[in-house]
């Protein structure tokens, strides 16, 4: 039973989001399993027939930033928000509307629901913010939702305008002080948790940020989901390349299959 074959998709647009971030809009025709927030796709910026000629060769994991209905009603549109950091993302950047790409997904385990649903805090940095948008959108319809975003400069905060369009409380921190509070986004977390009843913290960003978030949440005994990034080859649990340590003697988890979202207590942070 082949239910999730790799799919050819068409680039609808590929525009700047400011601050060196871009948004790739992809139309996928036909059936597409509904994704849950925090899941990702494996994306090759070439058509399936071109795989073996493409350089780089391996597909790249990308969070599903947002999903939308297509104009025709069949299929789905997915947005991928990304930053150019190397050859794969440079190829993505070069893609013109109308060109074909290949996508496998949706993959992995997304965010869990907040326990008693009183309130949730989402905290994101860098391109990690891309994993949080759908989750923030859905949570904000059900409970008090506070989103904390951080970057070097105001312009670099991925998708800030989109978050501003949601009915939630948004606070930003910039390292140059150009917007919001001056400093790291993790500095905002303790006071936020002080001020509101919170049943779950969700984080995605650089490892150092998530480690700090995990520690703060643990001190307050608040459940905390983190979304982890790692190099991937297959994205579907067969190459064992994306393993991360679960702590001394506890073996490994696969980021693509067991994650990318993990309960922060299950991870061996000292080795991450």
């Amino acid at each position, binding site marked *: 039973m*082949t239910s999730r074959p790799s799919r050819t998709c068409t680039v609808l647009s590929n525009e700047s989001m400011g601050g060196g971030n871009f948004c790739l809009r992809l139309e996928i025709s036909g059936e597409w399993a509904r994704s849950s927030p925090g899941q990702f796709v494996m994306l090759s910026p070439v058509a399936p027939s071109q795989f073996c000629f493409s350089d780089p060769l391996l597909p790249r994991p990308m969070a599903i930033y947002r999903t939308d209905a297509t104009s025709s009603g069949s299929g789905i549109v997915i947005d991928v928000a990304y930053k150019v950091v190397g050859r794969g993302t440079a190829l993505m950047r070069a893609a013109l509307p109308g060109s074909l790409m290949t996508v496998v997904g949706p993959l992995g385990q997304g965010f869990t629901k907040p326990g008693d649903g009183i309130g949730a805090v989402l905290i994101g940095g860098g391109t990690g913010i891309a994993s949080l948008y759908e989750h923030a959108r859905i949570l904000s319809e059900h409970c008090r939702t506070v989103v904390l975003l951080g970057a070097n400069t105001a312009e670099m905060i991925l998708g800030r305008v989109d978050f501003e369009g949601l009915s939630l409380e948004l606070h930003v921190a910039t390292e140059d002080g150009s917007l919001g509070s001056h400093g790291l986004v993790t500095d905002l977390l303790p006071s936020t948790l002080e001020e509101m009843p919170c049943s779950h913290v969700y984080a995605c960003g650089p490892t150092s940020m998530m480690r700090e978030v995990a520690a703060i949440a643990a001190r307050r005994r608040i459940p905390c989901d983190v979304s982890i990034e790692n190099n991937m080859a297959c994205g579907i649990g067969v190459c064992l390349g994306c393993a991360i340590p679960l702590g001394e003697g506890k073996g490994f988890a696969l980021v693509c299959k067991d994650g990318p979202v993990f309960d922060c207590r299950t991870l061996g942070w000292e080795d991450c």
Partner: protein
Amino acid sequence: MGRLLMSGTVDAECLMVDFAGLRLRNPVLAASGTFGYGLEMQSYVDLEKIGGFVAKSLTLEPRYGNSPPRIAEVSSGMLNSISLENVGVEAFIRQKLPEVPQEALVIASVFGTEIAHYVEACERLSSEDRVAAIEINASCPHVKSGGIEFGQNAQILGKLVGQVRSSTVGTLLVKLSPNVTDIAEMARVCEAEGADGISVINALQALDVDLKERRSVLWNGLGGLSGPAILPVALRMVWQCFQAVSIPICGIGGISSAEDALKFILCGAQAIQVGTANYLNPCSTEAIVGGLLDYCQENRVGSIQDLVGCLQPPRWKVS
């Protein structure tokens, strides 16, 4: 993509092959370590439409692998140092095997750090009906010889194959290590010791450097190179083995299209395995089956077996 190509191709006669005592629906198998235990791939590939798959290499006991980073990308290929990570023979038999669809052909792959471990694992696996064949992975360091791979020393390889042969009832394949001076010698050793076929090749030992860190890109230092980058090396080795032995050869190395598969068949491979290409497109194996069928139909090839080893002599020999 592959789905459309595949319609009506189930058991197309022109693709059937006899390989080392196995009757394969078609010559396209998935390579060990790139297809999990088969179950993980069911969402992407109809396991009953490909020739079969070689499951992730098993050790007697479950093992954890190396620390990250375990993989890195290089030009037209990738490096990996997953090491021995697997669920172990018993869990494979109890938990994985019963879940595999009946019509799928399963080849179990075995490795160990001592000959006795290989022997015990093969004994246990060959008593399972669902295991159609056993492939022994000779690219594992032999602890007693100071870490040299079993497949790198003809004497050690001979001893391994001989002992495993006497404890394995069904089809026994030996997967050769390419990290040798003379692959044909290793093929001959396998034939002499009673292997039913050889799988050629495993990943090539390699290294890449992270310039910022001035360190290997992999935690483990060295890794195995796979993907399109190794295809010409693998073809050369298959061809050399084909000259050297009469047991059947399964060609492996960088295959990602039907054209690639045909090259291996012309060089003497009766079947082929698809590895890294499963990562690029999880539907690769099925798409390659479709491509081979198209080729046979377009070129009026009655049986793909007729092409095995049909590589023409080089031009300079002809003129």
